[in-house]
């Protein structure tokens, strides 16, 4: 399974994503933002980091990178696209996912493990998790505060497009578990077609217990499994 890992100027989790894909048996392929073409790719990953230094707004400049036209086309044909952290921000800026990510309520960069509840397991990104499973996954961002207008939010909730939510240890959605002020404790969402996913926490950093947690594996094994059945 060939999985494109994009690198924008300022991406810094591309290496980690590359390793994660490799670890679950996929074939990661580097793609520099000025390279064109995603032919032959089975999935596309947009990494975390600080594309263009997060200047202006996180993701605002990267969304105009040449490769983003190909990402849009790839997504429109139903290809799976995952944006993590800065990748999520880019997908929102590009309009491939609804809403926006603004400054954390604390106004500080926030780096810690968070607990996430898996809201749906019938997607290509979460099929290897148990319903309601609580994951421990590192996050590290300054702009992860998810915002959308009322209407969009109602649609996300109504159509079950929220994939991950910040929760406490017992799996409850509580204010204290919310690291950045996101509406409804939203940590990750999927588009209505179910093939474009964005999340702020970093599953690729939770791939082995030596580093603290292996709970992020499921995102990558789910994706690879779906590609195997699709292909």
């Amino acid at each position, binding site marked *: 399974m060939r999985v494109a890992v994009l690198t924008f*100027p*300022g991406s*810094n*989790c591309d*290496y*980690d994503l590359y*390793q*994660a894909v490799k670890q679950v048996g996929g074939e990661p392929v580097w793609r*520099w933002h000025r390279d064109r073409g995603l032919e032959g790719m089975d999935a596309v990953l947009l990494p*975390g*980091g*600080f594309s*263009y*230094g*997060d*200047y202006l707004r996180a993701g605002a400049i990267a969304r105009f990178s040449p490769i983003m036209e190909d990402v849009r086309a790839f997504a429109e044909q139903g290809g799976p696209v995952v944006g993590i952290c800065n990748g999520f921000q880019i997908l929102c800026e590009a309009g491939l996912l609804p809403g926006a990510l603004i400054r954390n309520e604390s106004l*500080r*960069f*926030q*780096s*810690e493990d968070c607990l996430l509840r898996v809201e749906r397991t019938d997607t290509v990104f979460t099929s290897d998790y148990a319903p309601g499973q609580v994951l421990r996954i*590192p996050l*590290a961002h*300054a702009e992860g505060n998810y915002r959308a207008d009322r209407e969009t939010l109602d649609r996300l909730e109504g159509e079950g497009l929220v994939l991950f939510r910040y929760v406490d240890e017992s799996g409850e959605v509580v204010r204290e578990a919310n690291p950045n002020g996101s509406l409804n404790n939203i940590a990750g969402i999927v588009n209505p077609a179910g093939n474009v996913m964005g999340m702020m926490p*970093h599953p*690729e*950093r939770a*791939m082995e217990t*030596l*580093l*603290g947690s292996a709970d992020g594996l499921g995102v990558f094994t789910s994706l690879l499994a779906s590609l195997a059945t699709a292909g």
Partner: protein
Amino acid sequence: MSDTTVSEPRSLKPGLVPPRSGDPEITDEVVTGHGLSAEEYERVLRIMGRAPTFTELGVFSAMWSEHCGYKNSRPALRLLPTQAPWVIQGPGENAGVIDIGDGYALAFKIESHNHPSAIEPYQGAATGVGGILRDIFTMGARPIAVLDSLRFGDLDSPRVRYLFSGVVKGIGDYGNCVGIPNIGGEVHFDRGYEGNPIVNAMCLGLMKHEDLITGVAEGVGNTLMAVGARTGRDGIHGATFASEELSEDADEDSRPMVQVGDPFTEKLLLEASLELIKSGHIVGIQDMGAAGLTSSATEMAGRGGTGVTIDVSRVPVREEGMTPYEILLSESQERMLVVAEQGKEDEVRKILEKWELEAAVIGEVTDDGLFRVQESGVTVAEIPALPLTTGCPTYEREGIEALEIAQLRDRELPEADAPERDLSEAVLTLLDSPNLASKRWIYNQYDTTVRTGTAVRPGGDAGVVRIRGTRRAVAATTDCNGRYVYLAPKTGAQAAMAEAARNLVCTGALPLAITNNLNFGNPTKPHIYYQFRQAVDGMAEACRIFETPVTGGNVSFYNETDGRAIYPTPVIGMVGVVEDVDHVTTHAFRRPGDAIVLLGVNTNELGGSEYLYAFHGLVAGAPPSVDLMAERSLQQATLEMIRSALVCSAHDCSEGGLAVALSESAVGQEKPLGFEVRVDDPIAPVPLLFGEAQGRIVLSCDPDDVEAILEIADKHGVPAQSLGTVREAGDGLVIEAGAHRVHVDTHAARQAFTRALPRRMDQTLTADSE
């Protein structure tokens, strides 16, 4: 005072250079304003065989500043051991490099940005991180971790809170953006640093042996290229400025323009530099750091035994009308000087373009030993290169201990015999002390997990990063207790070395080498020079006994405000290797029922302790003594226990003493535990619980393994005793000391420990608070 310089290097005499129109005339005031003494100026005249031009004077001033020239430190630094079979690159390069096995090498270095951070904490600290990252990747190594060692005044001052929060944000924003995990550091708050904070940043980088490259201008005819950001007027004469004392009423305009960091450009520069080095198109590369283009060009020529010619009109600039003087001395960030193989300039440019950066040809390597600067072809400076770097005058000074410090050390201490307060309350108060409390408020602002290598994050004894594709990991720590060094510089420096080594072995790592950052006051004052010299002596001895040579470092003098010096603070940055990631150990107790064992000996030493500062506002007494041989045995014993898989947790026992070390192991983790221990040493309870005796480590292990642990300790001649047991959180923290009993509620202890910094920092911050 004696001038002990090596004989002047032989070199060509420079030709005549007419003054450049528009440049100021050189008067006595101009010379003094450039920080050169009359004798030093005499020396300039001898080297030049004529009067320097204004541009040339600027170059001498920067290169012979304390910061670049190590005027007052070089003779003492020669005393430090620098060799071991695993040292690949010792002092003198952008960073030191050691072999860490499996074909890998580790580059590492520490650097200070104290002065810039005192003026503009955010940018000062940010650019400090930027500079140290560049020192690492110019060696061909990819940065894999950052640590930061910080000192501020007491947090009840609004100005201190402003500095502290700005510095932390600056360090975080820069490292986070570039994507280098922070794996540890330290911070101390003490009135001894009021007005003059310390901001030291350390970086580790990983490479394969064959990727090593150095900052050498080799090969006559090779091309000098300026790479990265454009040159602006920022930070002109920063190196000279960093070599002066701060004064509260310093004229704003006399200060160099603040350098602003651009971590985004740094990230591109990092990738481009590593690609350049791999490409084989370049022979040398160096950061344009302190004293900018001047120091990078002359140092590279000095190391190569060559000369260089630069035309400043070819340097890409940010502003119009910059003079040669300004271009040569600008400290604009995110710039590199590269020596490209002749004919490979376009290849170099291509790589930089891919990363959306500029590369401009600005000069070439020559064989005449001269640093020659031209402006559109007209020579404006011509100086023998070697005397600029190695010919800097150096001074070995008389040191005398200040009488009042000797008196402080000898004074009688309160509570050395009997406690004046409730001991349980005292534990809670100490856990709430910003010096002992959790530093989570800091490292929550640092990305600690990017690059997916961090096996031990900040908050433990040392940070640990595993090396992908091997069983190995590297560990690093920074340590220094300035109070100890203040009270007894030699012992204090040895305590810093000993603590660093203990911190490493507690994570399962064998200490291998150090870098150091010597933060002191004005070395021309005899009692400051005394501190400096004693500290270096102490460090040298410890380096020899621990077999941890020095591979590089940094000296920051003149850390004084209005004549008051900081505590002498020789920060030790120590690195080590964990041979098998299975040995990685942390400080946190793991399971109720585990046995708690103390390695080392409790002593009756309360001097220099946090207890005295917290309850009596005192920095006094003799700091705890250091037995280097005993420390070494302790290190070896601990490592053997860990490698034998006998140890569940290991924690260095130092600041705050035994009571605090035990509490940290219990509540310094997300799921706190309790403990119950008994200590029967015939020592009064306050020094027993809160004295900071060196050479101690608190372990926990399976009760069945206690005997094996005691046996290993015995084999190494390390005293050890079983103290008690890890308990459930609900059982509280219990210490019986003779007839005294400490009982602290676990939740209360955790609250004190975790809330200490946030509680103090959740207040309005303003830039102008006094």
